[in-house]
């Protein structure tokens, strides 16, 4: 067991309103995304990872050849010229067809988001290639457009960045505002929004362009139930139009409700790929197994706590009873 596994986050959220829902089966077309032996490495300037190195992704220092007489400089290298490489995705290959809805699961730092960015064409890979039909559009929680500008301006900027014309954006404006459900806040700067409002507006903007491949990174986590329902129907729309949806989420129930196929990533590699229930069950088992176990010490502590609670309850009950008795006695005396 590596250090990474011990430091892992246990993120098996279950959203009650998703329970029992399933993604619609749609007719699958030809391949629309082919990923071939994808490696993503990014350079981190100004940080030399030691401990973080073990967290899922592989981090290694770029070995600069240091002659013996420069050994003295070594002491300062942590602060001068600190460059590390994060090997976040390590050789991933898969094919996705039109109309598929793919969920990506994995513990924190397993390279899910980086892979999503790479297959959206936003993060250049080190080696390997990604082939797509149409234009992929990534929607992430952090995709802040321009915080100092109003929502209205941001809708325009986002729409134009996605390749719409100003006229098309104007036409979609009302639809976007209605979908995001932010009302008159659209005329205030985006920095005044709550994080949920911001995420909702961004989701509305990026799905307004009706992309061929919609990639969603945790965005649904910030919405309320009504918004989730709306986004789910939007996702179904994309799939019905032979589009493809990718969804990265920590909520396994959201994935189960919206996806037909799941990719499980671990330490930058694909470890499982298949129908939603099969992979989701295996992943759930894996995450449960990671939970701190019921060791003897923990069990004893729990028992003690329970006993103390019961004693307190009993005491309270007794006190109540005594009080009632006293009252009854008083009442009787008064009558007498």
């Amino acid at each position: 067991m590596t250090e990474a596994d011990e430091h892992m986050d246990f993120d098996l959220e279950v959203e009650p309103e998703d329970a029992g829902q399933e993604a619609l089966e749609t007719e699958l077309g030809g391949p629309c995304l082919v990923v071939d032996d994808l490696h993503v490495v990014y350079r981190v300037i100004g940080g030399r990872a030691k401990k973080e190195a073990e967290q899922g992704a592989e981090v290694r220092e770029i070995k600069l050849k240091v002659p013996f007489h420069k050994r003295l400089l070594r002491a300062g290298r942590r602060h001068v010229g600190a460059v590390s490489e994060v090997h976040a995705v390590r050789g991933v290959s898969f094919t996705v067809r039109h109309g598929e809805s793919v969920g990506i699961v994995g513990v924190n730092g397993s390279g899910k988001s980086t892979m999503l960015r790479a297959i959206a064409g936003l993060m250049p890979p080190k080696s390997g290639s990604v082939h797509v039909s149409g234009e992929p559009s990534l929607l992430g929680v952090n995709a802040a457009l321009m915080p100092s500008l109003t929502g209205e301006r941001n809708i325009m900027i986002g729409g134009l960045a996605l390749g719409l014309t100003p006229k098309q954006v104007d036409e979609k404006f009302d639809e976007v505002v209605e979908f995001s459900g932010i009302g008159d806040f659209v005329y205030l700067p985006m920095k005044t929004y709550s994080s949920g409002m911001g995420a909702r507006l961004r989701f509305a903007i990026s799905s307004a362009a009706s992309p061929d491949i919609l990639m969603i990174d945790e965005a649904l986590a910030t919405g309320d139930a009504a918004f989730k329902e709306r986004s789910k129907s939007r996702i179904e729309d994309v799939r019905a139009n032979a589009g493809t949806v990718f969804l990265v989420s920590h909520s396994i129930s959201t994935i189960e409700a919206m996806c037909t196929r799941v990719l499980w990533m671990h330490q930058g590699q694909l470890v499982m790929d298949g129908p939603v229930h099969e992979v989701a069950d295996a992943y759930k088992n894996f995450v449960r197994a990671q939970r701190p176990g019921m060791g003897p010490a923990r069990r004893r502590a729990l028992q003690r706590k329970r006993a103390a609670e019961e004693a307190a309850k009993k005491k309270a009950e007794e006190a109540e009873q005594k009080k009632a008795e006293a009252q009854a006695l008083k009442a009787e005396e008064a009558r007498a």
Partner: protein
Amino acid sequence: MSTPTTDAAAPAKPAASGDAKKPPPPLVPSTTSAERLALAQQHGLRPLNVRPPLGEYIRSLASRWAFIRVLATSTAYAKNQNNYLGQLWAVLNPILNAAVYVLIFGVLLHLSRGVSNSIAYIVIGVFMFRFVEASVSGGAKSISGKTQLLRSLHFPRAVLPMSTVLSLLTTLVPAIVVMCGITLLSGYIPTYTMVHVTWWWLLLPAAVALMWIFNTGLAFIMARMVASVPDLDNIIGFVMRVLMYASGVIFPVSHYVENLGVSETAKTILTGVLDYQPIAVYLYLVRSVLMQEDAFPPSGLMWALGGVWAVVFFVIGFIVFWRGEERYGRD
């Protein structure tokens, strides 16, 4: 086919070893790399992260002109919007700037400029130079400071440096109005020669446009350089300060070459370089248009040079930037 697909060679067996604590071993794909590439080609899929050919790149950039414009005007507007005086600062800022420079260099320090209207000389120099300086530093940050945007939206990256300079141009417009006003008013100071509005003033937009093209080229080069070596951002301030004195922003530097203890040929070369380098050329153009001074006669040579510098810097800058296109956002 309506069942979900998988690319696993063998159907995955969850926790086959019975140890649920370990994730399954990495998958072995069912297809080889060559098969996948053939499949992609067969269905006409487009490879991502490949630098588009120059022609296609220019076309996709041209189709985003509205994006460049909206981004530029919105950032220019947002800059002043969180103040009580709001957009008034677009005019107040240049006035205060001009006041400081005129006070220090025009009133307190007496330098020979070979012109009688020192105030117009300084104000024009400072305002136009600030346009170049802001383009360089803004261009430098246009890629390296927007990693979040680069990692969330897909568009030709040349949009960013272009909109940065366009945004500076929109903030320059009120500054130019202030600059013209100060130039006119300074003519009423008794010892200065009178400044008149002449037909030459109509050429001011042309000079500013040439500068805008030149600055965009500079911004392209800086964006690429700082995106690959962030350290360069620290040096820009020093280089720009040297350029400020070398371009005759506050006082004509070529006059001081005469006093240097070097040979005559070295003096000629040095004067030539100082007078005909792009920033000096653009300052000359704006001064020759606005001021009626003997030191700045209208010059066809300078206009031609201004055009050449603009085209050269823009074309080289654009190509330099385009060659890094597929790498932006990686670091």
